[in-house]
């Protein structure tokens, strides 16, 4: 028994030592932003064409779709490298039947594994739900809703230069008035390059109550304080965004006052 234990301990020690050496020599993760940004659009195009075939659509090719992706991991403070389920890829493509939203892309959630393979979940608004009805009326799995792919761990790792803007959205569904009469509104700045910046104008009808300049990092949900009192009796206010960085709602957002 002692012989067995000694042998197994030695085996584990050898594996550990080999690993320590390999780690010391420098084994950075092969999972990088650039490799994902090159691999995902190609796989997406193939899956999108498979979906088009199921739907009986013709005339689409990988070249006509011309998908491009900007991928990043976690928030602005997390390096865009390594396996994890917190990767996000913003993918834009051109399909005449499916116009892109104003920001020009859909947000794909990506779980990347240590073996250089990854699982992608697409935005149902743009690619449809998990199952679709094919051209013959059968319910089939949507090839784009979720798919798996792998990239070459030694593949091209130079930056692709693809960037997409963040999307700014108000999260608050009402304008809350604090005990001191001040009001605030919570907004979210989504994943994208450069975050969100601009000016928020709070309007009471046609009268501007306050101007709030903002500069928000991507993937953040701060609360913007409005430095003005809302007149008593006002039922609603309009939020008008003038964006310099990122994409903000193009039309005024009307919020009830509470």
């Amino acid at each position: 028994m002692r012989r067995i234990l000694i042998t197994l301990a030695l085996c584990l020690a050898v594996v550990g030592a080999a690993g320590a050496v390999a780690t010391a020599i420098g084994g950075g993760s092969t999972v990088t932003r650039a490799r994902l940004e090159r691999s995902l659009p190609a796989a997406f195009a193939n899956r999108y064409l498979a979906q088009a075939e199921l739907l009986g659509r013709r005339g689409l090719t990988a070249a006509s779709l011309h998908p491009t992706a900007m991928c990043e991991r976690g928030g602005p403070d997390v390096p865009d490298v390594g396996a994890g389920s917190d990767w996000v890829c913003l993918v834009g493509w051109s399909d005449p039947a499916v116009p892109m939203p104003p920001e020009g892309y859909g947000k794909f959630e990506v779980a990347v594994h240590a073996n250089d393979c990854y699982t992608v979940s697409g935005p149902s608004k743009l690619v449809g739900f998990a199952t679709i009805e094919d051209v013959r009326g059968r319910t089939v799995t949507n090839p784009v809703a979720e798919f798996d792919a792998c990239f070459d761990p030694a593949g091209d790792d130079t930056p692709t230069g693809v960037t997409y803007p963040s999307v700014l959205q108000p999260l608050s569904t009402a304008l809350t008035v604090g005990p001191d009469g001040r009001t605030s509104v919570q907004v979210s700045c989504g994943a994208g390059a450069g975050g969100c910046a601009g000016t928020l104008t709070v309007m009471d009808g046609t009268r501007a109550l306050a101007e709030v300049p903002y500069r928000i990092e991507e993937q953040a949900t701060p609360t913007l304080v409005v430095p003005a009192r809302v007149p008593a009796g006002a039922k609603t206010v309009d939020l008008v965004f003038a964006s310099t960085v990122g994409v903000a709602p193009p039309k005024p957002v009307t919020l009830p006052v509470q």
Partner: protein
Amino acid sequence: MTTLPAPTPTVATSPAHGPAGRAAGLGAVLAWEVRKLVAQLRVRVVLLAALVVPVPVALAISAQSQPPKDTLFGRYATTSGWSLALLILGFAGQWALPLLTSIVAGDVFSSEDQHGTWKTVLTRSTGRSTLFWAKVLAATGFAVVVLAVLGAATIASSVLLGGGAPLTGLSGQTIGDGQALVLVAAAWASTLPPLLAFTALAVLISVATRSSAAGIAAPAALGLVMQLVGALGSLQGLRTVLPTTPFEAWHGLLTAPRFTGPLVEGLVVSAVWAAAALAIAYVLVRRRDVTGG
């Protein structure tokens, strides 16, 4: 140790002895080891299982209402037989293949300890080096045979019993049946180098522990631990040198364009592990004192 336990097939002297009563050559000793293997019920059962078990496995997975989406190729395993064969390959590489090869390689040396037959085989018939390499070759041959049987049985049962949809590759591309057969067979074949590395590891553990239980169970358990460690994203350097990583190198065959870097890397890593394990095992066998046992 004067009595010889019954289970050892005491294959008689004729194939082991060379002409003129000299020590037998490698070929003769190999033939002797192979006959000992073939005579074992366990070896026959393992080969039969490798041939038959893929059928119920393929049926069970195809019959599931929800495909096992969390595993690579699980998403289309219920609709495409090719995907099913690759899903099973993924599981086989995780623990089944290391276990199957260990059943012979982890026992081939320690069985002589169990039966107390080292003196018999060494003093009467052949030299230690010849015996060592004959046993290693026999274990290697078994690994090749069991992989071929398991791979062929899995591909055949998956394609015949699974769904008829074409294979979806790892770049989302659709692969036609003719090419899918070549790629799936190549993917199965590509697990031979790490399988042989595990064979050598099982030989080493069998020699070092002199215990068949350890020789059979330890490589499979080590393989599982290595799989877990390799799946941790933070240990990329360690992942590269583990003999379990080449079990996944076939992924590159199913992308478009293909990549073969991991296959080459896996070949080197497997060769280093096999060479190191065999070298240590060889020294242990050469220096071992068998007169006491």
